[in-house]
């Protein structure tokens, strides 16, 4: 089918409009991050002079570099644990019959719609009492409780797509349930595992509420929370430009991740497994 010229133009114009709408704030941040000193008041979109000054400020401050280390560390740990647990849980949910199976999925969905802020205060008190306040573990635990349900949901959908015969064939071929899972099911669910991993990583990386309520020092404070503590060159100047620079820095890993794994997220690996 060939679309007529006018409809084609319509779609292209629409696409450009939406892309601009999404990208202008990003360009604005990038542009801000290159404005040195008082240049942010220049009333122009682009900086008068392109300068790396803000980036130097950002990397020179301990506040940012330790926060970056915290963010990277906690995101990786939380993502790994979350994906491993979610893979096992989702497999059980999609393949085994056990009482309360629907309840588990229902609760998982309910947790994802639960407002984060609602548990932040209770956790703050609880963590202070048991000594988890201002530690990595103290943040990783609530991260897991929010990312696991979503991962389980995504992965159980992927597992359901894999034909039962795959495992049965493996069992007949001499595999134990674990071997069938590891050698057949996990490779086939790889796109789902990557999707779940990326979603979890984003959620943890971008977290602000837990980061600001459950930390008090640089010991565990992640980047989004640390940005709020930035100070300007003097007490009276707003640190807008350095914050913009820091925001650009933390966006880069996310963009790289998406570019790296977008091929992996493409479903359809199960092509050719069965008749067709």
């Amino acid at each position, binding site marked *: 089918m060939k679309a007529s010229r006018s409809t084609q133009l319509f779609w292209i114009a629409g696409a450009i409009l939406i892309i601009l709408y999404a990208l202008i704030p990003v360009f604005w941040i990038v542009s801000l991050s290159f404005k040195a000193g008082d240049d942010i008041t220049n009333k122009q979109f682009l900086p008068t002079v392109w300068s790396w000054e803000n980036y130097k400020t950002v990397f020179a401050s301990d506040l940012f570099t330790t926060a970056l280390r915290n963010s990277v560390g906690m995101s990786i740990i939380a993502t790994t644990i979350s994906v491993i647990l979610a893979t096992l849980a989702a497999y059980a949910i999609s393949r085994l019959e056990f009482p309360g199976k629907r309840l588990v999925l229902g609760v998982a969905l309910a947790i994802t719609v639960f407002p984060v802020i609602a548990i932040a205060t209770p956790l703050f008190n609880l963590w202070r009492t048991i000594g988890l306040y201002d530690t990595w573990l103290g943040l990783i635990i609530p991260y897991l409780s929010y990312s696991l349900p979503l991962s389980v949901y995504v992965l159980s959908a992927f597992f359901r797509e894999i*034909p039962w*015969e*795959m495992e*049965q*064939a*493996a*069992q*007949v*071929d*001499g*595999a*134990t349930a674990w*071997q069938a899972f590891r*050698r*057949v099911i996990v*490779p*086939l669910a*790889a796109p789902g595992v990557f999707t779940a991993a990326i979603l979890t990583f984003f959620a943890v990386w971008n977290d602000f509420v837990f980061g600001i309520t459950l930390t008090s020092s640089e010991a565990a404070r992640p980047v989004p929370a640390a940005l709020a503590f930035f100070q300007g060159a003097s007490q009276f100047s707003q640190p807008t430009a350095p914050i913009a620079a820091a925001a650009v820095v933390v966006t880069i890993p996310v963009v790289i991740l998406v570019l790296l794994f977008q091929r992996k997220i493409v479903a359809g*690996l*199960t*092509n*050719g*497994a*069965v*008749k*067709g």
Partner: protein
Amino acid sequence: MSAIEMRNIVKEYGDGFKAVNDVSLDIADGEFMILVGPSGCGKSTLLRMIVGLEDITSGDMLIGGDRVNEKAPRDRNLSMVFQNYALYPHLTVFENIAFPLRLMKGISEDEIKRRVSEAAGMLELNEHLDRKPANLSGGQRQRVAMGRAIVRQVNAFLFDEPLSNLDAKLRGQMRTEISRMQRRLGTTTVYVTHDQTEAMTLGDRVAVLRRGYLQQVASPRELYEQPVNMFVAGFIGSPPMNFMPAVVTGDRLKLPFLEVGLPSSAAGQVSDGQLLIAGMRPDHFEDARLLDPVKRERGAIFRARVDVTEWLGDSQYAYLPFESNPEVAKQLADLAAELDSEALRTQLIISIDAMSRLRENHEGEFWADTDRMHLFDPKTGINLTRDEAAAADLASLEQEELADRRGELAK
């Protein structure tokens, strides 16, 4: 290689539905056994109970003399070809075939290579070993699934309708291929199908199932010539056996179109005036004009109007409509429904010489080989004229053939 014995196997589901009911079946070492029946007859369930993917509610399953009811599939040392092949899409053809070997301990890489290339050679897959299943044609995938089954030494091969996803031409080729492979390896094989051509051509013996009950286990020839009941008679053979109402009058039998003497084998079991169902195969008829005079003596001649003829080059079918009585018509409609078909009208389908120039909507003269006619009890469906002596003869022939083949393999 092992014999498989089933003793009073029952499969009952949670809702009380019995998919397999008291099936006892002995499959000899090296035998090719077919499980056949219309959909929902329990044949696939039975196969899955042999391989261990389905629990056995009661009864004993013995493979090579060992009871395997509680054994996991991987401990039964069987291999299975699934209806949809169930290839591992993330592995190459080589790795797919090698998969069962990789799961076994203590096999060297060289040994794996040797065995895979041997299996691939047998199935002519050598040039595809590095490809992924997604890039193969249906027939090639089918062969990979078979390669995975034959790559290790197993007690038995199990096939679950392996050819039903292939087109007709390929199906014919693969059928021969499976037969050749089984003869060459001499491995006990259980093969589930609903296609009766496969059942007739592949099997040493065929087990016909109906609603979870075993109807008859016999060689294809015996099933065709000496069926135990109307269900087996109607299921085996294509076009199917013709069923007609037959009324006993004295020592004569009144059928549509013709009247014959009551067969001696049925004489003691029927009373005067009783309604029976007569079964005659399409190939037990002939156009009287083209008949071998020697045969003429043996049967009966009758005249009938031809409704439709189908000329196929090598053979020809003629359709002769007749009026049936309502009781028989209902019986036949029920049977047809059970056989996954539909009884549209009561008619004789007869196979006549392709040379015959019978014209549609004209009367013709036909010959029927009434000696080979079967009579069924309309209530129970039991065959009243089954010749046990002939059946035993056919069974012993089949036994001899299997013994012959085993002898050949042993050499």
